[in-house]
């Protein structure tokens, strides 16, 4: 159970007693989490604890069944919504393994995403020229060559380039809540620093982050306000940034739970 003192202050995300399963296997077993606007929460834990599942369940991926509980994003219950509605409600999941989609250009994908969200808010779509300008700026911001806008979505991108492309989407979509799923995986220190700088540049009082990570090292670059340890589908310990250091020193062995089957990552 989270030890963050509940306050009456407005929450960005409130997860209450969330139980979820995939292929009839219970993964989340009573997750509670409260994230205030502007806060950065890190969720750490051993493999199989349910870290990636948390991101998938919140973002509405097919095949993940909510058995019980609720998740309220900025005052709106999202668990009954389709994935695209959750995105339009302001949720953004940066994928651990961004999908390659040859034949769909990155620019077309970015514009369709932004258009869909603007339309949902009753705003007019950008013209192609207006959007191209924004996309170019975002591209520069994440240090990707402009040619990446023309290429197929993530097609042939390196691990670091894919993560920067996720960041570019985040910049353009301006979500309320960003979930970063193992954003550091497969990145060397330099690439991680670039991504971390990008994330830090997006921190603001009305945007919250949940950083899902196995290792502490990303948290050297993105300073969390709170660190939670997820084990066997629920949060077993919460603390401030120093908890991550503690975990690094001691590992997860003190959680006397056996790691469950690896069910995160690619469910194909």
């Amino acid at each position, binding site marked *: 159970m989270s030890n963050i003192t509940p306050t009456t202050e407005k929450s960005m995300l409130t997860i209450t007693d969330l139980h979820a399963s995939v292929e009839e296997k219970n993964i989340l077993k009573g997750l509670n989490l409260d994230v205030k606007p502007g806060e950065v929460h890190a969720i750490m834990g051993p493999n199989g604890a349910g870290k990636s599942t948390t991101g998938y369940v919140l*973002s*509405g*991926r*097919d095949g993940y069944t909510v058995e019980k509980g609720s998740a309220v994003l900025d005052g709106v219950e999202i668990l009954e919504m*389709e*994935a*695209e509605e*959750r*995105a*339009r409600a302001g949720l*953004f*999941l940066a*994928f651990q393994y*961004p*999908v390659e*989609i*040859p*034949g*769909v250009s990155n620019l*077309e*994908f970015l514009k*369709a*995403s932004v258009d*869909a*969200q603007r339309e*949902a808010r009753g705003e007019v779509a950008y013209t192609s020229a207006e959007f191209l300008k924004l996309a170019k700026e975002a591209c520069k911001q994440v240090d990707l060559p402009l040619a990446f806008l023309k290429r*197929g*979505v993530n097609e042939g991108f390196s691990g670091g380039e894919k993560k920067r492309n996720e960041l570019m*989407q985040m910049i353009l*979509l301006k979500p309320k809540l960003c979930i970063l799923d193992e954003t550091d995986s497969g990145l060397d220190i330099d690439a991680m620093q670039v991504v971390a700088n990008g994330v830090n540049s997006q921190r603001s009082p009305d945007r919250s982050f949940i950083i899902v990570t196995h290792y502490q090292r990303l948290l050297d670059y993105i300073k969390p306000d709170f660190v939670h340890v997820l084990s066997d589908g629920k949060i077993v310990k919460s603390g401030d940034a120093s908890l991550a250091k503690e975990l690094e020193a001691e590992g997860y062995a003190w959680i006397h739970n056996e790691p469950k089957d690896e069910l995160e990552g*690619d469910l*194909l």
Partner: protein
Amino acid sequence: MSVWLENAIARANSTSDWLSPIRSVSLAALKDTPWPTRKTEAWRYTSLKSLERATLSPSPSVNQDTPEQIDGFESFNLVFRNGEFDLDSLTQPLPAGLMISYLPTASEEMKQASLDEFSQIKPGRHLFGLINDVLAQHVVRIEVAEGVSISQAIRITSLIGLNSESHTRVFVKLNKGASLTVSEHYQGNVESLNTGFVEYDICAEAKLEHYRFALQTDKAISLGGCHFKLGERADLNSTLVGFGSDLSRVDTDIIYDGEFATAKLNAFYLLDGKELFDLHATVEHAVPNCTTLENVRGIVADRAKAVFNGRIHIHRHAQKTLAELNNRNLLLSDKAEINTKPELEIYADDVRCAHGATVAEIDKHALYYLESRGISRSKAQVMLNFGFINELIDQMPNQVLAEWIRPQIRNRFAEMEVTR
């Protein structure tokens, strides 16, 4: 035998010109070839009924159409109207090393030399190839001299009018180390018949970039082919785009004649309504060390029908062959049909080959990725379906042609309904 074919043979019999020696050989072969029925393997899924029923006239109607402008495409334009070659095509100044000849008015020596080349690459088993042999009169020959690279493309356009027949024939020779881009364009939607055959002799170290836009629709019947022979270290990059009509078929052959040659063939078709498109592609690995990459994709909607037969034949001595053949199809309705038959016939033991044919499903992972960004499921499906074909447009080496065909494919795709 069909009435149309009987008339065609009678017509061929009464024609006497420099092509007569070839014509008589092909006529003899034609007389021995039974008119295809459902039981004829090469025509099992493609009925010739629309040809049998069509009202066609051998004397061409007047046709003043002009080829569609392709902005930014630098090309020498060769135009056939109802099968007749537009002699104005020959007035454009050509760079050194490029020769374009209209054979009926060429010198006797050239005619004689051409007879030795004629129908040497196109295999004799193609019924409409034989028909083209006996009916083609306006034959054009293109040659690029040894070591010469022609930067401007050659665009061959075949225009056809109501009830017309067009039997165009082109022979292209790239001498050693030459390079050239050829783009074949077939269009039309009125009741008509077009047999357009092109033979390509790509000599050692020569490089051909090739496009065939088989864009006939509705009642325009098209039964043509393109046939390539590759010498040592020759390189072919071919893109074939097909729309469907009542009857539309392309036969293509790639024949390796020298080692270390490579061919990349990308083909895609989009079919709607009751359209049919049939692609028969044969690759003959007759020598060792050659590489074939063949990627064929289709989107078939409504009650349309696609036929694909891809045969890769690796001869006994063709060791170290690398051959990949892939046919993927998206069916947008329950009544849409794909008849696909990839055939690998391997007689050598040291080769790397892969082949597959699938009715593709939308990648669920990709769908979720798009949805997770706020894109609706229906819009995401459209993007992914179009992306399936667009990927091959992206691979077209000529950017101008890619940007010319992309909106046409997009429009055609936009009109298709997803009902499954």
